[in-house]
């Protein structure tokens, strides 16, 4: 497995370089895992991407580097201490940085690009050089660049890559991997694609980091996928538009980050009482308020499980991987339709912006649920039923009249203050949870069945936990992990099975241990220790290992 860092200032072309490089390496057979660490600014500052590639599944980023592609001196200063002994630094000849202890490879990238007639092709010089350094063939460059670039700049970039390729000698060996036919996709793209697969017809959102990638992906495919994407005037409009579209029969979703979710909260309860299917995506970032806009955190869990006044059934699904982001988004849209409830998808910046290899999605695994098209006799939109689910007809598609009301209402959907009807309606709505709880997905267990220490985590910590457990057990440890996807209502079978008699440590990307608190509140099971990180940077598998071996923080 190899790991390289591409760093520089915002606006220097890090993303383009990395996105071409990761596709080339995947084309060559590697499994790819690329994380993005960037500041909330358009120019300047320090941004970097970590591109990890190997011949087996990779689930976490790492700060142990084989190479640094430095677009400025600051990148070298900040990251040189993380280099392996054999590691290299690749930079432009114009950088004056020198250090006899480091293997600094300088090539005149800017000059080469200038001579080829396009100074912006300097990144392709670096791409070519990296390929050679890792012993990769040059043969896929044109194919991959063709898919990434406009025709008029293609030739100069291929030439630039060729020049870079010829300017260095190989340092590492090519490793043979079997992942060239895997997908390479970010969490936010996977979420958007999953929504398309789940029958999405309408998406409204207001741009907000780090959820904007979902909006932009859906906008890019909307015309062919027949999804109408509307940028709303604010977050409240976005969610109320989703509700209006959903009521009228178009499967609808809205997406945002925590701050925008705050604004959508009243509508969440409206979805609950009016029983209008709704999926709300929260791509979490560190809060409160504006917080750290482009960074990551898992601190909205306790907020979203209780957001909005009053009581109503809801479901919260934490997305763990690029695979989950696809399948669980499609499932959320279908469960929202089936139970006529709001469903919240919790992603975060780490998952959303990380690109990883994933087995091509199998659409046949998605089971579609559709609204009712007609009914016999009198139609009661909120008919009291055994399972709490009433037939949902679509206004205008039936001669029956369809009502939705944010007030408490009777079976017809008309406003009421009857104590009896109020009780019946509260009970009807909450009853839907019985059916939902029967189809909850238990958390994924990873590691040693007979482990002595059980780690508990959720969402995007899945990957780092997986790597940590593998590393620990490979070195004689006895660890397991339970990682929650469906998180509210809290699935409890695995918890009961695996927690008894074990040391329980919750590992979370927040300051207060929100999963531990939820588990304790729902089951009485208490964690003994916790590892918590809330600096806006995702914990790595290696950091989890180190903290466990040093002894976890006391909770």
């Amino acid at each position: 497995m190899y790991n390289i860092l591409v760093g520089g200032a915002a606006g220097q072309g890090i993303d383009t370089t990395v996105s071409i490089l990761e596709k080339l390496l995947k084309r060559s057979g590697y499994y790819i895992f690329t994380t993005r660490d960037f500041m909330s600014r358009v120019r300047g500052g320090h941004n970097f991407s970590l591109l990890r590639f190997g011949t087996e599944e990779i689930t976490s980023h790492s700060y142990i580097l084989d190479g640094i592609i430095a677009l400025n001196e600051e990148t070298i200063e900040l990251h040189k201490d993380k280099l392996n002994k054999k590691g290299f630094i690749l930079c432009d000849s114009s950088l004056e940085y020198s250090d006899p202890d480091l293997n600094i490879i300088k090539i005149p990238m800017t000059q080469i690009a200038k001579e080829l007639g396009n100074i912006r092709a300097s990144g392709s010089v670096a791409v070519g050089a990296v390929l050679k350094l890792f012993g990769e063939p040059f043969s896929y460059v044109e194919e991959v660049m063709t898919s990434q670039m406009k025709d008029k700049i293609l030739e100069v970039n291929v030439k630039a890559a060729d020049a870079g390729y010829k300017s260095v000698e190989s340092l590492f060996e090519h490793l043979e991997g079997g992942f060239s036919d895997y997908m390479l996709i970010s969490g936010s793209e996977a979420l958007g694609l999953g929504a398309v697969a789940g029958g999405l017809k309408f998406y409204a959102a207001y741009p907000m980091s780090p959820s904007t990638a979902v909006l932009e992906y859906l906008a890019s495919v909307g015309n062919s996928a027949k999804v109408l994407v509307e940028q709303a005037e604010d977050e409240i409009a976005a969610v109320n538009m989703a509700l209006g579209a959903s009521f009228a029969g178009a499967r609808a979703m809205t997406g945002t980050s925590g701050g925008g979710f705050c604004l959508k909260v009243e509508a969440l309860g409206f979805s609950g009482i009016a029983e209008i299917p709704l999926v709300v995506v929260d791509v979490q970032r560190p809060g409160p308020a504006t917080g750290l806009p482009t960074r990551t955190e898992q601190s909205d869990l306790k907020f979203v499980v209780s957001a909005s006044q009053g009581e109503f059934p809801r479901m919260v699904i934490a997305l763990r991987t690029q695979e989950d982001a696809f399948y669980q988004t499609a499932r959320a849209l279908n469960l929202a339709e089936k139970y006529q409830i709001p469903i919240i998808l919790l992603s975060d910046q780490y998952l959303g912006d990380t690109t990883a290899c994933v087995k091509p999605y199998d659409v046949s695994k998605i089971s579609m649920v559709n609204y009712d098209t007609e009914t016999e006799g009198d139609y009661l939109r909120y008919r009291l039923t055994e399972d709490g689910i009433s037939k949902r007809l679509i206004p205008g598609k039936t001669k029956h009249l369809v009502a939705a009301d944010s007030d408490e209402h009777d079976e017809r959907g008309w406003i009421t203050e009857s104590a009896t009807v109020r009780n019946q309606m509260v009970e009807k709505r909450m009853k839907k949870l019985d059916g939902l709880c029967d189809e909850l997905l238990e958390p994924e267990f990873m590691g040693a069945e007979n482990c002595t220490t059980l780690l508990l985590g959720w969402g995007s910590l899945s990957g780092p936990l997986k790597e940590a457990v593998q590393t620990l057990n490979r070195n004689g440890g006895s660890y397991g992990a339970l990682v929650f996807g469906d998180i509210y209502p809290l699935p409890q079978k695995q918890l009961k099975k695996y927690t008894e008699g074990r040391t329980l440590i919750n590992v979370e990307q927040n300051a207060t241990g929100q999963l531990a608190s939820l588990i304790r509140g729902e089951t009485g099971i208490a964690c003994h220790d916790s590892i918590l990180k809330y600096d806006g940077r995702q914990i790595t598998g290696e950091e989890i290992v180190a903290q466990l071996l040093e002894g976890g923080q006391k909770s």
Partner: protein
Amino acid sequence: MSEFKTYETAWCPGCGNFSILNSLKTALEELGKSPHEVLMLGGIGQAAKTPQYISANSFCGLHGRALPAAVAAKIANEDLTVIVNSGDGDSYGEGGNHFIHNIRRNVNIAHFVHDNQIYGLTKGQASPTTAEGHVTVVQTEGNINAPLNPMLLALASGAGFVARGFSGDAKQLTAIMKAAIEYPGYAYVDIMQPCITFNKINTFAYYKNAVKPLPEDYDPSDKLEAMRIAMGLDDKIPTGIIYREDKPDFHKKHVLLKDGKPLLDQERDKGVLDNLIHSFI
């Protein structure tokens, strides 16, 4: 006989909403609409209860949020006749942002604002259109905030259909409503109405005396004249269609909707999903 029935209402006897509701029913009947083709939406307030009181599809949403739900319902299914009934508080206060931006969006819906210049449901506080000096339970020294001029705001924001009606002139109001429902775009009508319980200043007699229908030869395509009228410089409050401009609405401009097939009936071409998945390989 109208197909549109009135259900039991909870408005005060003598409320201007009754005649607005009657005009609405007449307008829908005269346009040949059937209840199942019509979707009535409201936010929160006395006016926003209108969808509860008429036999049509109904969506009684959140305070101030009827417009986003309404335009999205129309985007989902353009076969629906979509009408928002809400008050001055709902439309201009809590929902003010949606008012401005849905003028820009220009989705084909009708928006009837029952404007009684007071909060009725919450019992008598100042609304965005309450006159300066008006003493209320909250504005105890008299309202010191300048009233909003929603007509001028709508015109300045680019609304293509701007009208003002009066609940006491049912004939004119019905005609305005019909034109608004037929207008292919966002049609905005501010309807002055007395609140007999909480507004003792803008009473029926006050409005009756204050309004004056626009002359028959008035040209609603003249935007400058419309803005002059909307500024309220004249002694009387002009009623009628103040401005009307024919321009493409949201559906006509949207690549997915311009062919006239409702969004919810559009099927994805076979293979699209597979192609999208494949694009990541």
